């Protein structure tokens, strides 16, 4: 069975692009536009990887990741955000909370490379 990825972002255009790209790459993809939807999706079909934005409409991506870790302790979490963090912040703060951090300006090939690194091919 194909590996399952959950994408959480409040911007529909970004979600649809990522869903299209990762589906074409062979993964099974579910998307959610809020932490609430993400929780429901996790209960319905636990993913092998969660990709989340930082600034969500009604919450914080890092907070949501903390909550999801309660039910998915071994699942890698990737932060994909437009907020540009200082390398020190990434090293000292983000790396303790997420498995990978990527800026939204990163090419899709790099996104796929990180996905492969975290959960392997589909």
């Amino acid at each position, binding site marked *: 069975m194909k590996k399952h990825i959950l994408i959480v972002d409040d*911007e529909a*255009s*970004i979600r649809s*692009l990522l869903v*299209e*790209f990762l589906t*074409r790459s062979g993964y099974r993809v579910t998307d959610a536009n809020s932490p609430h939807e993400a929780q429901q999706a996790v209960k319905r079909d636990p993913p092998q990887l969660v990709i989340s934005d930082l600034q969500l409409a009604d919450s914080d991506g890092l907070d949501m990741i903390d909550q999801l870790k309660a039910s998915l302790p071994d699942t890698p979490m990737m932060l994909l955000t*437009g*907020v540009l963090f200082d390398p020190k912040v990434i090293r000292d703060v983000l790396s303790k909370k997420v498995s990978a951090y990527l*800026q*939204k*300006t*990163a*090419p*899709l*090939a790099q996104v796929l490379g990180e996905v492969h690194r975290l959960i392997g091919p589909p």
Partner: protein
Amino acid sequence: MNSPTHPPAPAPDRTIWRIQACFLLISAVVIAVAVASIRNINRSMASSDWVNHTHAVMLEVDGVFSSLQAGNGASMAFVATGDARNQGSARAAFADMAEHLEVAKALTRQEPPQHELVLRVEALANRRAEFDRSLLGSQPGAARSLLSADAGGDAMGEIQRAVEKLTEQEMALLADRDRTSFLQAQTIRWTVWSGVALDVLLLGGAGWLVSDALAARRRAAAVLEEANRLLETKVRERTAELMASNENLTTENLERRWVNQALEHQLRYDQLIISSITDLVLVVTKALNISRMNPAVVRLTGREPQELVHRPLAALARLAEQPLVDPLAQALVDGQDLREQAAWLEDKRGRKIPVRLSLFPLRDRDKVVGGVVILRIMPQDAPPAEKATPA
């Protein structure tokens, strides 16, 4: 209206024509051989009939002579013995002779030379038979005197010669017919064997044409199959190339959309940050004309963007101190920041508001193309003025 297009007509198959011609020739040879054979068989049958006929003529003529001899002998015996039985035998023999003569004449009616000879034999035999009958009808003494005066041996010899001549003629004709029959048989043999040989050759030729045509078709089929295989391989390769190319294009398209989306998102995000700043932020050109501003400028001055764009910054804000050399222009020339300078902001109603002015040169690849001006509202009682400091 377009005329319908027809596929090119296939080239005529000459092999079929040749095979058909071969079989037509074979049929013609078979028919010719059959006709010639039947004709020769008919001739042979006619020859056989004729041989039987000739032998019958010879037998009848011999029968004439034999009957005449028997009648003559019986007549002589009657004259010598006077025995009536000899008289009956003679008469029976002569009756046989007459019968043989009639049959011989009938058999030779269609053959004038032989018929002539038969008539001659008949005349001689009848003359001799008449003499013998006269002997049988005479008194013994008279018969003996008639007999002594008879040159019977000559008469019988003449009849025998005539019979032999007729027999020789018939035998000569038989020999001719035998030769003819032999030649006819030879002709039949040659005709049949030649026809068979020709048919075998033609069948061999037809077989060769068929096998050659089949071989050519097999070769053509193999060539076609190979061409199809190559075409399929090329189509598969081309399809794979197109699919790969399409995949690449789709990926590139996705990547481009992603980049645009990310840039648009980043721009919007940055714009959001700038718009949320309560300080007045303006972008000026190197000539210190206003090109952009944040909403705080519009809100605080009451001036709309179209009133400000492409207007000198001095129309909106001025440094509290005005030295000979404009510090703002100099800062852009030098590429140095100008921070926290005391200045006045003039709103739409002409009210002067004290502010702190900072100018940050805007660089595009190490070249200053303008500057970002930040005006921070100061409390009314705050002391203005502060010297420019290099960044």
